[in-house]
């Protein structure tokens, strides 16, 4: 049985370059692509066997999405801080000038409050430094790490289509199969070699994607906890000073 298998495999490999084979391979790949883009129902068992991969992809997309959202939020936050700081400063100045005209105790208090407000508005602006650092880091993360993973995901999807196409092909030739008929077996071995090859490629990329996504998630955690610490310290200092 093994001898035969080897013979057939070799035979199938030599055939691999043949034009007909290439055409058929293309045909089944295209067919799979069509199924995918038209949203036609795919083989449930094939889909189920990729469940772990699809969960990782889901995670990847959520990392991608939330990074974008985080960037937008930081931008908005920066703007608001500027506004708030300006308003605070204005109010502080106003209180100070009003207080200097008022010679009663109330005037003194107004002056003191105004001073505190001006000070706090300065401190608030200090938050912008760690925030813009956060922005830059997340942006770099997005350009480097996310887009790198994205490339791997795309390559994986190519191989996935190829593999599923090959499976469709195998299913097709399996409808009529008689190991005693040489012609049919020849054809089957050819397709089997194709499936084996496509599976090898796909499985490798599948592992790559899963590892990369895990790494991506971990390094984002790392990055955030790092940069946010600086932010938090500055924020604390700011809050404390404001209350003094």
């Amino acid at each position, binding site marked *: *049985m*093994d001898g035969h*298998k080897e013979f057939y495999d070799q035979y199938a490999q030599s055939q691999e370059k043949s034009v007909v084979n290439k055409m058929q391979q293309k045909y089944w790949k295209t067919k799979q692509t069509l199924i995918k883009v038209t949203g036609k129902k795919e*083989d449930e*068992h*094939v889909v*189920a*066997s*990729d469940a772990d991969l699809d969960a990782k992809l889901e995670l990847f997309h959520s990392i991608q999405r939330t990074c974008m959202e985080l960037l937008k939020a930081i931008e908005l936050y920066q703007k608001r801080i500027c506004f708030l700081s300006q308003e605070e400063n204005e109010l502080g100045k106003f209180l100070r000038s009003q207080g200097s005209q008022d010679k009663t105790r109330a005037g003194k208090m107004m002056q003191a409050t105004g001073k505190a407000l001006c000070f706090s508005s300065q401190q608030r602006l200090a938050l912008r430094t760690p925030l813009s650092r956060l922005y830059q880091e997340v942006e770099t993360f997005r350009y480097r790490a996310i887009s790198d993973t994205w490339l791997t995901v795309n390559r994986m999807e190519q191989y996935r289509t190829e593999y599923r196409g090959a*499976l469709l092909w*195998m*299913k097709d030739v*399996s*409808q009529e*199969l008689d*190991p*005693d008929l040489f012609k049919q077996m020849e054809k*089957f071995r050819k*397709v*089997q070699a194709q*499936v*084996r090859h496509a*599976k090898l490629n796909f499985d490798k990329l599948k592992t790559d994607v899963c590892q990369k996504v895990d790494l991506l998630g971990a390094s984002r955690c790392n990055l955030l906890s790092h940069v946010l610490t600086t932010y938090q310290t500055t924020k604390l200092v700011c809050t404390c000073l404001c209350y003094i």
Partner: protein
Amino acid sequence: IKIIVIGKWRLGVGKSCLLLQFTDKRFQPVHDLTIGVEFGARMITIDGKQIKLQIWDTAGQESFRSITRSYYRGAAGALLVYDITRRDTFNHLTTWLEDARQHSNSNMVIMLIGNKSDLESRREVKKEEGEAFAREHGLIFMETSAKTASNVEEAFINTAKEIYEKIQEGVFDINNEANGIKIGPQHAATNATLAGSQGGQQAGGGCC
């Protein structure tokens, strides 16, 4: 007679090993994932008649499941294989059995196989549980080891015998090739092909 060997997906339950042991009397310790299906054949003698068993060893991985379904057609018997050291392979039996019954000849002889009986220390499924499952679903049951060859001959040959008896009783129409039985060219001898396909954790039976 065509016999198919089927079994649950994920890491092998030993379908290919069973076939290799039966046809070549060898054991292969490295797991070589089956892609789609592999074939094996052996001549046996029942009742003084030469019978050729044609065995289809199906892939157990889930992605091949829809493909393996097309191999049930025309099988006279099936070996449904699980791994006694992994309970999950036993728990999936019902689904596989349903699958087999749905896509095959209703007379197909099904033999339930608990494989890897040599790994007694790592056993997770008791022999009694296998027996009970077989009784409940009207299957023949055996524990085998593809490693030590224990009960491997018996599993295939008993399946073939069962099929042979069914032929004698006239349950199988031997003129209908869809039953997985072909009469050989010599009028005296019955040439039967037993085809078994193994997929995942179930092994399919055989027919002659």
